[in-house]
């Protein structure tokens, strides 16, 4: 409640160049966003808007700033300048966005001493889902899990990397998020699981109009899933492409050495 009360102050501090608040379709907006580590700028995004329902792919070589951008959206690191808003509300040091965003970046998003069941149950209760909701959700994930996650009698720390990833991605979806953020979801997954994941993401996009932010090193996957692809290089947005038949070619030629 506190957060809503303070909102007018934060908005008045926003530079005038920003779109007005009425534009509720802008799910995520970044403005004047920079992140510096020890004087080196690792991310510099003057202005970026991700619209409601957009599937947004982020590609770039190692160190381009993909994960940094995601961590800034998730308020896990502090921006050096500028800010990020989700649905017109600042994320930094706030809590309101948390109920709208589902995310899985790395092992830090797993609780490795729980069984997958306990982990899902914990997450579901945090999002105030009932047991029935959880059971229905897990059933819908049955295909993706391929019978390897539930009832395995293992703690998450004893699962293989691929199964850990599946567990984390599923947990990101439990809260019925409006926005989904996944960092390299395809790596470590076996080919069948990659295909299943792509199918699942496309389904979520069409049936629930979920906004998705996905980073990937695999240009094939990302062009198949995302409508819009942004290329980062050394912290700067160097390409912002609406996906078409030529996109893959364009990206391949961009990254060719």
């Amino acid at each position, binding site marked *: 409640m506190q957060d809503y009360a303070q909102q007018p102050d934060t908005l008045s501090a926003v530079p005038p160049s920003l779109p007005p608040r009425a534009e509720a379709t802008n799910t995520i907006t970044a403005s004047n966003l920079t992140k510096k580590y020890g004087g080196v700028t690792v991310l510099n995004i003057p202005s970026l808007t991700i619209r409601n329902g957009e599937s947004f792919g982020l590609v770039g070589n190692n160190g381009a700033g993909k994960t940094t951008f995601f961590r800034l959206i*998730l*308020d*896990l*690191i*502090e921006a050096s300048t500028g800010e990020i808003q989700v649905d017109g509300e600042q994320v930094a*040091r706030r*809590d309101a966005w*948390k*109920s709208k*965003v589902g*995310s899985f*970046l*790395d*092992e*830090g*998003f*797993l*609780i*490795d*001493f*729980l*069984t997958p*069941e*306990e982990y899902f*149950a*914990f*997450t579901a*209760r*945090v*999002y*105030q889902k009932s047991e029935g909701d959880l059971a229905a959700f897990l059933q819908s994930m049955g295909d993706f899990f391929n019978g390897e996650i539930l009832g395995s*009698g*293992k*703690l998450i*720390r*004893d699962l293989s990397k691929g199964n850990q990833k599946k567990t984390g991605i599923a947990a990101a979806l439990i*809260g019925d998020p409006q926005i989904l953020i996944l960092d390299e979801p395809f790596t470590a997954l076996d080919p069948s699981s990659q295909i299943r994941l792509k199918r699942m993401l496309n389904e979520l996009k069409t049936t629930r109009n979920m906004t998705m932010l996905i980073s990937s090193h695999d240009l094939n996957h990302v062009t198949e899933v995302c409508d819009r692809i942004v290329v980062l290089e050394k912290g700067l947005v160097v390409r912002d492409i609406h996906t078409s038949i030529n996109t893959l070619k364009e990206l391949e030629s961009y990254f060719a050495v």
Partner: protein
Amino acid sequence: MYKILFQHYLLKGIRSPGYYKNLIVNIFVGLSALYFLAVFLFLGFMLPKLLEEITPGTDPAVTFHGIMIYGWFALLIIRYLMQPLNRLNLEYYQTLPVKRSVLMNYLILKPLLNPVNYILLCLTIPFAITGIFPAYGTAGALRFIGINIFLIWFNSLLAPLLKRKFHNLLLGATLLLLIGCGLAALEYFKIFSIFALSQRLFGLLTETPFIWIATVTPGLLAFLLNKVYFKQNYYPESFERKRNNRATTQRFTFMERFGKIGELISLEIKLVLRHKRTKSTLYTALLFLFYGLIFYPNPVYNQQPGWLLFVAIFITGTGMLIFGQWIINWDGAHFDFLMTRDIDTHTYIRGNYYLLMALCVSSFIVTTPYFFFGTKIIFYHLAAFLYNAGVNIYVYLFGATFNTKRLELTKGSAMNMQGVGYKNFLVMIPLLVLPVMLVLLFSLFSAAHIALIIIAVLGLVGILFRAPLLRVIDRQFLRRKYALCTGFRKSE
């Protein structure tokens, strides 16, 4: 090849990431090691006098020889419990063209190079000078030292073997203890005296030239047994023997009625129960509860308000004092998760607060039997409990936001200082020192009870004003959030 392996072993110790960063903790550990060293040296020099007092008329050397088997056995049990196993983290070397036997010997002999294992020599060498030398001369004293070194080798080689053979530490320790008790019982009922046997055996060994060298044989035997064991279990998979017990999904239905806070608390309970380090700490905490038995019956301490309050704060807050230093910090491995889920800061802090409170209350309840030591103890315990629950609890929560080092919970050993910074020691000052100073000050005017009332009132005020105090901690947590996130992401 051996040289390179042992060089790597040394480098691993020196270059471990925590080594320099943790300088202050290392100094602290070093100082306490020096303290023990000094105590051992002193004890070694004084031992002949002590033994004279205990058994007047007998040569201290003879008495010492008599207890040597018992001493050896006791040390074996301690070593069995404490000595960390050399993990076969040799995969890198295993794939290189290095002979298997070289790697095996290296693994087996590694403990012999650890100076910590020779700490007992600090006791026996001075004793050789003051106790053995007068009776057996220089040669005897040297032989005595040699025998002791051989026995240390024997123990250092035997303990890991036992540890590998008997995986269940509790069962193994009980078994060893039972054997020890059995021997002691034989002694007590005068059926068979190990004491006399030990006396004759070690007396003979110290006395006669050359035969003493035979004491190396048990060590050699242990070495060979180790080799046989390793030959059969060379591959890490058979060696590390993954525990195959199925993890069972647990639910604390009782906690579910407390909503998100209850969920957070049951998460922390699972965290404690499913990590080696926290579990062994839990057992230590249980031992600390008995701390009062040393102090309360002792007239030297139980007349001194300072000591009484110190002990009271310590034992009524055992759970909090021990786990409080890890609060927030122990969520390090999944901190990003907790920060991105629908758990607002206020809820997260309150979850931790109520967990500490639960620890506090349960420690207080468990220590109520101490009330039998007198009504005075009741007042001290009540004041200490209120102080813990109303003041110390906030100090811990506030202090936790400064500890950005990720706590590695999977590696558990008895003296694990990983993730402990000097800040943990700084926290101790308001926790224990301030109230004790207050009581000491007032007891100068024989008014310790007034100090107790002040302490209790402070605690009560802290409990009553928990809402604003917790908001202060919320704000502090938000200020430190990014530093915590960044710190926890770096695993050592």
